[in-house]
C-alpha cells in the first residue's frame, strides 16, 4: 500500500498549508474507511458494516451521499438484527428517503 505522503520529513519539500493538511487527513480517513468496509464485506460482518456505513453517512459531504450510506447502514443493521435498524430507518424517513 502506498503511503499518502513521505514517512520521513523532507527538509526540501514545501510546508503544506492548513487546508492541504485537512484535505489529506480527510483523504486518509476515506481510504481507511474504504479499506475497513472492504474487510468487513469480506468477512460478511453485517454489524460492523452497519457501524462503518453510519460513520460514512455522518461524515458525508452531501445529503445525497448521506442517504446512500444510511441506506446501507440500515440494511446491514437489519441483516445483523441490530437494534440500531430502527433509528436508522427513522433517519431515512425524516429525510424523505423511506416510508415508516
Amino acid at each position, binding site marked *: 500500500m502506498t503511503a499518502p505522503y513521505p514517512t520521513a520529513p523532507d527538509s526540501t519539500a514545501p510546508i503544506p498549508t492548513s487546508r492541504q493538511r485537512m484535505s489529506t487527513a480527510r483523504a486518509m480517513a476515506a481510504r481507511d474507511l474504504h479499506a475497513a468496509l472492504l474487510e468487513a464485506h469480506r468477512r460478511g460482518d453485517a454489524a460492523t458494516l452497519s457501524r462503518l456505513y453510519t460513520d460514512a453517512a455522518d461524515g458525508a459531504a452531501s445529503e*445525497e451521499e448521506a*442517504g*446512500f450510506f444510511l441506506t446501507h447502514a440500515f*440494511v446491514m443493521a*437489519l*441483516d445483523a*438484527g441490530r437494534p440500531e*435498524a430502527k433509528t436508522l430507518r427513522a433517519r431515512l424517513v425524516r429525510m424523505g*428517503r*423511506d416510508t415508516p
Partner: protein
Amino acid sequence: MPDTATPIAAPLRGLPNAHYTDPALHRTEMQRLIQAQWAGLAVEADVPEPGDARPIDLAGIPLLLIRDRQGLVRVFQNICRHRGMILVSEPRKIEGAIRCPYHSWCYSTEGKLVATPHVGGPGRNAHPDIDRSLLGLIEVRSHLRFGVVWVNIDGAAPAFDVAHAGLLARWADFDRPWHHGGASSRFTLRLAANWKLAVENYCESYHLPWVHPGLNSYSRLEDHYDIVSEQGHSGQGSTHYRQLTGADGATFPDFPGLPSIWNQAAEYTALYPNVLLGVHRDHTFAILLHPQGQGATEEHVHIFYATPDVDPVLAAENAARWKVVFEEDIFVVEGMQAGRAAPGFDGGHFSPAMDGATRAFHAWAGARMNGGMHATASSAPGTDAGSDTGFPAMGISAAPDAAAP
C-alpha cells in the same frame, strides 16, 4: 391390527417403464404426486431455534424452511420477490432479516418485506409502485406431525388431518410428540433409483427373508402382515418386535399409554407420497424421500424417541442397526431402476398374495396421475389429466375408492 388390512382390486401389473424413465411423466408426477399432496419436506429438528433456516429443494422447487422469531416453523418459496434470486443457499442462522444477496431486499423471518434499498433511486428506499405489504415471501402451506414438516406446495389438498385420517386413526396411540434422537439419529442415503421404487420396496415384507436375512432370523416372514389402505398409506406390520437392550439391560422408554398390543408389534407404512414411517413401542422413524430427478433419490432418515433425553450410546447403536437394514435395500431399488431400461419389462406381475401394499401405492398414484379424487383440482394448471400418463391402459380406476374385493 392385522385384521384391518383391506383387500384391493388394483391390477396385478405394475407401472410401465416410462414411469421411471420418461422425463415428461416425471414432470407430471412431481406436480400431481408431490406438489398436490402433503409431502414430507424435513423434520422439525432441522430448525431447532428461532432464526434457523435451511434451503431444501423438493420436486424441483426451491423452498426455505425457517423457524421464525416467535418459534413458529414456516416454509417459503426460497426466492426474492424482486428478481427471483435464491435467498438462502446454505443452512444458517438468520440473525435479523433475510437479506437477498443480489440487491439486498430484506424480509423478516415471518416473510414480510421490510426493506427495499435504492428502489426509488440511490438512497431512496421506497417507491409508490412498490407496495411492500404485497410483496412478502410466498408462504407454502405446511403442517407438523410425527416430527415431520409436511408441505402442500400447490395449497389445494384437503387438510392434513382429512387427507390422512386413515393412518392418524390407525396410529392414534403414536399421535404425540416424537423427540428427535439428535445428530447420531439422522443419516442420508443416496440411491440411483426413482423415488417410487423406494416406496414400493418399503411397503412389502415379501423381500425380507432374501434381502434382510438378519431381520428374518427373529422376525419371520409369517410374522408379518400387510397394511393396505385406500386412504393414502400402505405397508406392513410385524408381531415380533424385540427391543434393543444396552449392556446393562436398559431399554429406551416406551411411548406413554400404549395398549399392550404394541409390546411386540411394530408397523411400517409409507404415508404417500414420499414419507416412510415406522413405529415401535420405544422408538419411531421417518424416512423422507427427496427425488433428485427421475433416476436418483435421497433418503433422509430420522429416528425419534418418546423422551428428549435417551441414552446416546444406545441411540447410536439403534441408528447403526437401522442403517444396515436400509443400506441392504439400496441394491434392490437400484437394480429395479436399471431393469426399467429393458424394453421387455412390461410393468411386472405382482403376487396376488404378497404385493398388496405395493399395488395399493400404484393404485393411489394412478388415480392421481389420471386426475382422480382431489388430484384434478389440485393439479397444476395446464396439465393434461390422464391422457398422457399411461395409466388408462393399465385399467386402474380414476377413483381411488372404487376398488372393491
